[in-house]
């Protein structure tokens, strides 16, 4: 027989001023099972809490109802108090007399009557509460970071420095990502490589970091603290251990005409190549699509030349499976191609380039060694037009969002151009300038005021080629939409930031949700910006949304901190409000009939199959089992189960049913 204690809080005047708390306490005393019912000014105060603790001992209470504010406010407070008195904390429930009663109703009989009902409901619930134990899930203290750009490198370093092993997986042959392609960075104009490469090297050398470049995630199973990730290590055709990175093969490769992706197609490379001089690891890879041997079956020149015999034409992809406890997604972004702009020549005009191509032109390590030469004829461009918001904030291009970084890098580009091309003219067409960030607006003003870049508020309607020049037609909306026609030698489109190739497929592999543009979705836009809806998987950088380097680095460290916190204990503790499948002694075993209709209803893949076996090992029946590590406690499976074989702790069928029966 239950012995319930009820504690009615006045919350000063907040409840007491509207609800007749004494009467509520008295009425509750008449409920079977209630052995103690009192009211008090402030239950959450120390004396209030001690009052509860004392009553638990004195009246040997089996359950406690605190009728006060919203459980969303003080449930933890009172459950702790109850626990300190030696009662299982989950035997304490709250009735919401403040937010749901005294604050929203007038003083009077009906309000007190409602208060009494709300308390009775909770009394009937708590009579059926079960003592629950928090769920302990073991944690594999090794992290997997997907993506070797600045976000992934930062996250990997932070986790590694916290003392945990990290596997850093990068799909291209070298880590570094987009940042390694940049010339200078805003707002300081310091050289991107100069600040990035040390980090790349540090990552490569770090005892806790295992680099897997030229590799991709094949599949993922498991759950927080207990993932199994299978990684495909694509065949480099080069033995990384033997290769010294001497570079002989790359210089001697007869095949020279392959567009260099790192330089955004502004230069060419061989079929065996190192993406860029500072690549980490600095080991070449054979581009099988373009290698003469793979096309004709003849050549193998590199193999003959290699002093250490590191070339391996027989090398195959290999699959490695890793146990990891947490995953950081840092797969980055891609830029919208210039070919998406019919009005700007479908990317057919050599001198209409995108922002990243400009970075390479401006980069000291780029195809022009940093000299301003336009792609078509290598002539230094005397007039350059920069078009911001190319594709961004443009529904017709399927990108309603702002790409965030373009305003800043366009200002930077214009400046770099002016610094390199004295006397050159730079125009920037813009919708509006978004330069909020430390020293950002100052930076843009410098471009306008000191480097006198001409900013024109308006859109570019059309660009076409005319005798070796590009005619840019736009309008200046600050001058009543005055038509502008500029003859330019080069045009730079600040094209939209888009989600990385294959993001959707990857999200589905990971059961991470994503937005309509395939950027990965955070668990909560405000309070869980680095978590995903899948526990144990975190986000860093532009795979979530467009953002710049400092933000990316900050978020990467945030994600790393989440991982470090998870790894701080060898077991992770979760609220026991999870679903459980009914179990019974033989010959019934379980009320579950094994139809598994619940399985597809679960958003967390928490429902597994369990075979109930006889002594001889033969399967008697297969029933559902809820993995408490994965279950989030929504209870959708409970409502789906016809035989009521699944129930949810803390909101059990018996509890809810009793609540209804009280009204």
């Amino acid at each position, binding site marked *: 027989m239950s012995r319930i204690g009820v504690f009615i809080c006045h919350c000063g005047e907040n409840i007491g001023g509207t609800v007749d708390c004494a009467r509520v306490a008295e009425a509750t005393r008449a409920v079977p099972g209630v052995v103690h019912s009192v009211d008090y000014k402030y239950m959450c105060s120390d004396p209030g809490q001690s009052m509860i603790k004392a009553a638990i001992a004195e009246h040997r209470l089996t359950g406690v109802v605190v009728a006060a504010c919203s459980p969303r406010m003080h449930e933890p407070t009172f459950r702790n108090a109850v626990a300190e008195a030696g009662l299982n904390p989950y035997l304490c429930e709250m009735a919401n007399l403040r937010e749901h009663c005294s604050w929203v109703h007038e003083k009077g009989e009906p309000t007190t009557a409602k208060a009494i009902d709300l308390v009775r409901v909770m009394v009937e619930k708590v009579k059926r509460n079960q003592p629950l134990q928090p769920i302990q899930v073991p944690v594999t203290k090794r992290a997997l970071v997907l993506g070797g750009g600045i976000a992934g490198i930062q996250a990997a370093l932070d986790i590694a420095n916290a003392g945990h092993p990290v596997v850093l997986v990068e799909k291209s042959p070298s880590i570094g990502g987009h940042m390694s392609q940049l010339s200078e960075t805003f707002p300081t104009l310091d050289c991107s490589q100069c600040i990035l490469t040390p980090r790349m090297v540090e990552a490569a050398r770090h005892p806790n970091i295992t680099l897997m470049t030229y590799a991709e995630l094949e599949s993922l199973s498991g759950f927080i603290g207990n993932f199994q990730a299978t990684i495909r290590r694509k065949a480099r055709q080069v033995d990384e251990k033997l290769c010294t990175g001497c570079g002989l093969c790359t210089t001697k490769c007869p095949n020279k005409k392959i567009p260099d992706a790192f330089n955004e197609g502004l230069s060419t490379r061989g079929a065996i190549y190192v993406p860029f001089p500072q690549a980490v690891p600095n080991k070449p890879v054979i581009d099988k699509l373009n290698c003469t041997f793979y096309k004709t079956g003849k050549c193998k020149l590199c193999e003959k030349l290699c002093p250490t015999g590191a070339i391996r034409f027989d090398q195959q992809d290999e699959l490695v499976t890793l146990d990891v406890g947490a995953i950081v997604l840092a797969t980055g972004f891609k830029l919208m191609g210039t070919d998406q702009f019919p009005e700007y020549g479908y990317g057919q005009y050599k001198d209409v380039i995108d922002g990243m191509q400009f970075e390479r032109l401006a980069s000291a390590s780029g195809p022009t060694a940093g000299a301003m030469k336009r792609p078509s004829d290598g002539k230094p461009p005397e007039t350059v037009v920069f078009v911001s918001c190319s594709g961004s904030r443009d529904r017709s291009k399927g990108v309603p969002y702002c790409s965030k970084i373009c305003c800043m890098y366009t200002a930077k580009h214009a400046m770099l151009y002016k610094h390199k091309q004295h006397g050159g003219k730079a125009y920037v067409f813009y919708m509006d300038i978004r330069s909020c960030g430390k020293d950002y607006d100052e930076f843009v003003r410098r471009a306008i005021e000191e480097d006198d870049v001409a900013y024109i508020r308006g859109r570019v309607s059309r660009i076409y080629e005319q005798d070796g020049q590009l005619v840019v037609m736009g309008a200046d909306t600050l001058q009543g939409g005055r038509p502008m026609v500029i003859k330019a030698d080069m045009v730079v489109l600040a094209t939209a930031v888009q989600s990385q190739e294959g993001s959707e497929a990857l999200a589905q592999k990971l059961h991470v949700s994503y937005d309509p543009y395939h950027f990965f979705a955070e668990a909560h836009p405000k309070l869980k910006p680095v978590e995903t809806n899948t526990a144990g998987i975190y986000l860093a950088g532009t795979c979530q949304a467009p953002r710049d380097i400092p933000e990316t680095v900050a978020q990467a460290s945030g994600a790393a901190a989440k991982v470090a916190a998870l790894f701080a204990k060898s077991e992770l503790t979760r609220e026991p409000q999870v679903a459980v499948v009914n179990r019974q002694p033989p010959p019934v075993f379980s009320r579950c009939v094994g139809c598994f209709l*619940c399985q597809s209803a679960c958003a967390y893949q928490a429902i597994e199959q369990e075979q109930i076996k006889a002594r001889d090992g033969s399967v008697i029946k297969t029933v559902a089992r809820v993995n408490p590590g994965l279950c989030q406690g929504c209870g959708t499976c409970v409502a789906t189960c016809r035989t009521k074989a699944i129930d949810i702790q803390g909101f059990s069928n018996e509890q809810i049913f009793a609540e209804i029966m009280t009204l």
Partner: protein
Amino acid sequence: MELNEKAKQLLETGDVKAVLGFEAGTQGGRRPAFARSAARAERLSFEGEQNLASYVTRKEVKRLGRVAVAARPPVLRALLQLMAERQVKEQDVLPLVQEADGQVRELATAQAMEEYLALSPQQIPAADRELMDKLAAMSQQERWAYWQDQLSRCIKCYACRSSCPMCYCEHCTMDCNRPQWVPVPSHALGNLEYHMTRAMHLAGRCVECGDCGRACPVGIPIHLLTFNAEESVHAQFGQRAGASAKLDYALSTFRPDDKETFIR
């Protein structure tokens, strides 16, 4: 070849341990019949109404071994749905259908069953459709009165549940007593909640064989309730129970753009 010869063959070759068909019953009626020997197989034929799929999930029948089942489309739909719900294995049943030319054909695989069904459109019998339309045309109060009158005659013998191929749960909601979801007694509330719950539990799972209504000793058209639930699943989500052995249960899946008109 008729069912009885086919049955003899299958039993003699040992392909199946029992053949489930129909035989002559009381007062010129037909009834389900099991044949486990060639002799018994003699009286079997396809002619009969009950949905024989309701037998294949019974433990007494499972113990017999592989059974051949005289199958009409509702039976095939039920078998496929049962496979989707992991209650029956493809290799445990051998559905037999009668071709237009009288030949008996084996549909040994789920795929064969699916293909066969694809050719036989599913539709509610005209009389039932008529009654459903009549009810739909009534006012809510009239419908209430109609069902209260009908259900007042329910004695909760559970003939409907026992005859339903999809009511295979060993432990039905009706038998749950902590809490006692549905009152056991056959009073007005117990009857209403029983039939309401059954219909909801068959939404997206009802193969529209109408056996529940056929089984009712007092003649309550309860099959209309499961028909209604199944039809609104089909109308709103485009899913049909028993179309495939692959689980596709409308009520444990969703589309973000499901269209409703009543949520504020």
